[in-house]
């Protein structure tokens, strides 16, 4: 099939073209301005919430992170030999155990997929 167009329809489409002399641009730009104001207001609100959240939870958050960090370093097994204890440090802790567990899960996931 060719891409020829029907001349009658072509002329009807050409005649239907309108010129506009109204306030469309103003109306449109008003909605653009309103949207910009809304975006600005929501960004300010989010920033205020983040700051308030930070102020309210600063101390409890720091305490929790500190407690978690010290718990993660707890040894799983007490070695008598200092050198052996030093060498086993990376895996002889809750953090090491969690790390190994994550590595295992990752390997399992890769094997499955």
């Amino acid at each position, binding site marked *: *099939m060719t891409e020829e167009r029907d001349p009658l329809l072509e002329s009807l489409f050409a005649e239907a073209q309108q010129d506009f002399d109204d306030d*469309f641009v103003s109306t*449109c*730009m008003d909605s653009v301005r309103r949207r910009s104001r809304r975006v600005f207001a929501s960004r300010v609100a989010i920033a205020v919430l983040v700051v308030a959240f930070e102020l309210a939870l600063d101390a409890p958050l720091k305490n929790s992170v500190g407690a978690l960090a010290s718990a993660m370093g707890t040894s799983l097994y007490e070695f008598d030999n200092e050198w052996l204890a030093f060498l086993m440090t990376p895996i002889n802790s809750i953090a090491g155990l969690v790390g190994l567990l994550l590595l295992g899960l990752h390997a399992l996931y890769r094997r499955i997929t």
Partner: protein
Amino acid sequence: MPEAPGYYTEGPEALVVNLATRGDRDAFAELVRRRQPWIRNLMRRLCGSPELADDLAQRVFLLAWRKIRQLRQPDRFGAWLKRIAINEWVQHNRKRTPDWVADIDDLPLPARAAAIDEAIDLDRALDELPGPVRLCIVLNYHERMSHGEIVESTGLRLGTVKSHIRRGSKRLRERLSAYGESA
């Protein structure tokens, strides 16, 4: 609304688009001023209702303002805007028009008696076509897009586009002549 400065009204579009991508609202207002007749005419052919067409055209420009920072090629602003307009209309139509996928052959020809006092009305005739057919016809006749370009813009298959244009043109001629005879 105050007049845009001369360098906006006289500047090449790519330059104005570039300014708009950096958040210049006056530059964007100039783009709206330049492109609104085109987008509103396109929407009128697609919608049938002038009020709805203007409403959708406004949403097109609002979306364009939201996304204009993502526009990488300022000289492709027109094509980019047209794509937004088509998507906006398709989404609107999918939400509200149950005949979006209706077969053109299922539609009855207009009752001639009902159209006695009505003038030939292209928009009214277009409004009676199923959504995808109307879209292909408008892009082909109003936008003078080739079949390949319509495929690219709408995501429809080439065979479908050709069929919609062929059958849609035929149906449109029948409808317009029916109005003509009854007027």
